[in-house]
């Protein structure tokens, strides 16, 4: 059994509060008559989208950039996270003078449907029952997330996006945007992603979900009602997933076989190794800010993602007559979304006659490289957006 120091089980309620009344966020409410039509055949209403914006929308409304977050990300892309107090998850990429320059672009980042940081999800209060949604929440897809984001843009009066950018599950949303609303997307930056979740990735997700559900505190998904929190299960899920975000080389470089604060092994199941201690820390800090049921729903959405299947099995049909300019990026050591996945995207885009750039970046940092300090990635994103901005007629400085 993994030793996880348990904090206050009421932390689940803290996540729950953020799910309904997110701090330092903007909220768009969609009431009766504005349902989100889900792929599951259910109309979700009412619902809300929490989001952040950075920069200024220009008079032509032509400089909007949508950032799509990854599985456990949220809309706090370039500002302090209200729960952890840490800086935004993509502050290296988004901000004044950064590659996605908020002095030039109007950046919008919404929390996805099914998440737990302010957009309606399983941790949200269901006004029809007076209780948290829990497992009554309908199963959602990446296409549902994008459909909700399109409603948000309508709400904001933004017809077309200058660019849509994101990595991992965010990259899936980028591809879905280009497929669902090609006329609304001038340029697209899908990073470290795929047009379909592989069997191996579904398998990893299933292990994570089983870890959550094996925790007795999960209470068949009713933990919020019963004042419980499946912290151990969610922490184990995160620890397992976190390994897949790194690489053998990166783990070896960072930790090797080094002991944690000790000279010798303790001949126990303590966290003797630094890498164990690191993973436990990752697990513990994750459960402070994430809802276990959200983790089930969002991993499921990624599993279901298969863009080609939605288009009769021919991926190129998903991008037929696409005017969108694409820049696909992968990382050499990413074994979750390997370069071959990105190549499949590029082949389909070429077959569809789309304008596509593709760069593979050499790094040992694995899948997480898209979130880290990768100067080559920054140069590519900056150059791609500059080129697209010229084609779009964007003035320097917005």
């Amino acid at each position, binding site marked *: 059994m993994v030793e996880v120091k348990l904090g206050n089980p009421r932390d689940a309620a803290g996540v729950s509060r953020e799910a309904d009344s997110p701090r330092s966020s903007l909220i768009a409410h969609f009431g009766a008559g504005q349902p989100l039509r889900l792929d599951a055949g259910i109309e979700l209403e009412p619902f809300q989208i929490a989001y952040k914006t950075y920069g200024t929308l220009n008079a032509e409304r032509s400089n909007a950039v949508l950032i799509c977050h990854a599985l456990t990300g949220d809309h706090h892309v370039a500002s302090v996270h209200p729960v952890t107090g840490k800086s935004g998850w993509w502050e290296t990429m988004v901000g004044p003078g950064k590659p996605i320059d908020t002095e030039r672009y109007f950046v919008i980042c919404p929390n996805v449907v099914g998440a737990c940081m302010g957009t309606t999800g399983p941790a949200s209060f269901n006004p029809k029952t007076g209780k948290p949604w829990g497992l009554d929440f309908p199963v959602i897809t990446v296409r549902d997330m994008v459909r909700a984001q399109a409603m948000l843009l309508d709400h904001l009066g933004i017809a077309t996006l200058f660019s849509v950018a994101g990595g991992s599950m965010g990259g899936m949303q980028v591809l879905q945007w280009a497929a669902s609303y090609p006329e609304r997307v001038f340029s697209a930056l899908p990073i470290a992603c795929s047009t379909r979740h592989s069997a191996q990735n579904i398998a990893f997700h299933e292990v994570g979900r089983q870890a959550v559900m094996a925790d007795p505190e999960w209470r068949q998904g009713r933990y919020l009602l019963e004042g419980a929190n499946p912290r151990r299960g969610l922490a184990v899920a995160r620890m397992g997933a976190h390994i897949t975000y790194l690489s053998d080389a990166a783990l070896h470089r960072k930790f090797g076989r080094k002991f944690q604060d000790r000279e010798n092994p303790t001949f126990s199941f303590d966290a003797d190794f630094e890498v164990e201690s690191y993973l436990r820390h990752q697990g513990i800090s994750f459960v402070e800010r994430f809802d276990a049921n959200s983790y089930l729903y969002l991993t499921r959405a990624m599993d279901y993602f298969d863009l080609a299947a939605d288009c009769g099995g021919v991926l190129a049909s998903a991008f037929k007559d696409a005017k969108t*300019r694409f*820049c*696909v990026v992968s990382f050499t050591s990413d074994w979750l979304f390997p370069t071959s996945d990105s190549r499949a995207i*590029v*082949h389909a885009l*070429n*077959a569809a*006659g789309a*304008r*596509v*750039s*593709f*760069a*593979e*970046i*050499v790094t040992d940092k694995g899948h997480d490289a898209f979130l880290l300090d990768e100067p*080559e990635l920054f*140069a*590519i994103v*900056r*150059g*791609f957006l*500059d*080129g*697209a901005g*010229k084609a779009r007629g964007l003035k320097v400085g917005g």
Partner: protein
Amino acid sequence: MSMLSRAKHDLTMADAARNPGGSRVDLLAVAQMVEHGARVLDVGCGDGELLRLLGDTRGVDGRGIELSREGVNECVAKGLAVIQGDADTDLADYPDDAFDYVILSQTLQATRRPRVVLEHMLRISRHAVVSFPNFGHWRIRLQVALGGHMPKTDNLPYSWWDSPNIHFCTIKDFRQLLAAVGAKMEKGVALNAWGSPLRLHAPWWFWNLFGEQAVFLLSRKE
């Protein structure tokens, strides 16, 4: 090859001098064969110099394929639409008539199957532009014939054991390939060692002997 009409606007050193970026004269020769506003694929685009030149001077909608990762990433960072790929394998992925021009600039001799590459170029595009170092140039002939060793020149600085160039040909050889794949030569220019074009009405043997580089505009035979 009486069908041949040589490049309408012969290159002069003044052309090179006029170019603010100081582009290589062989690239200028290639660029002059491309119509304004065309859809262009540059196979083996290197650091993107030709694509940039075509964008600046010809207003083309340009794409590139480049084998080296460094080249690709440099191009993408410049805002060019370039993907990492291999001329020998990846041209098959493009649909018929996807482009107006496909360019193979100083890359033919580095491909494993030049004939297949050229066939694909003429499948996915109405026109192909091919530039290559002429192995029939007198200096090269001299190095092999009298020096008794594989030639090395400023344009071809590699030793035989580490050269990426595996399929050298002469202008004469190249014309044989065109006949084999059924390609029509629309325009041609040969550049001497100083980058100046050779006399317009020179006979083929003269081009083959004194042209250090050759640039040809090709099309499918209908």
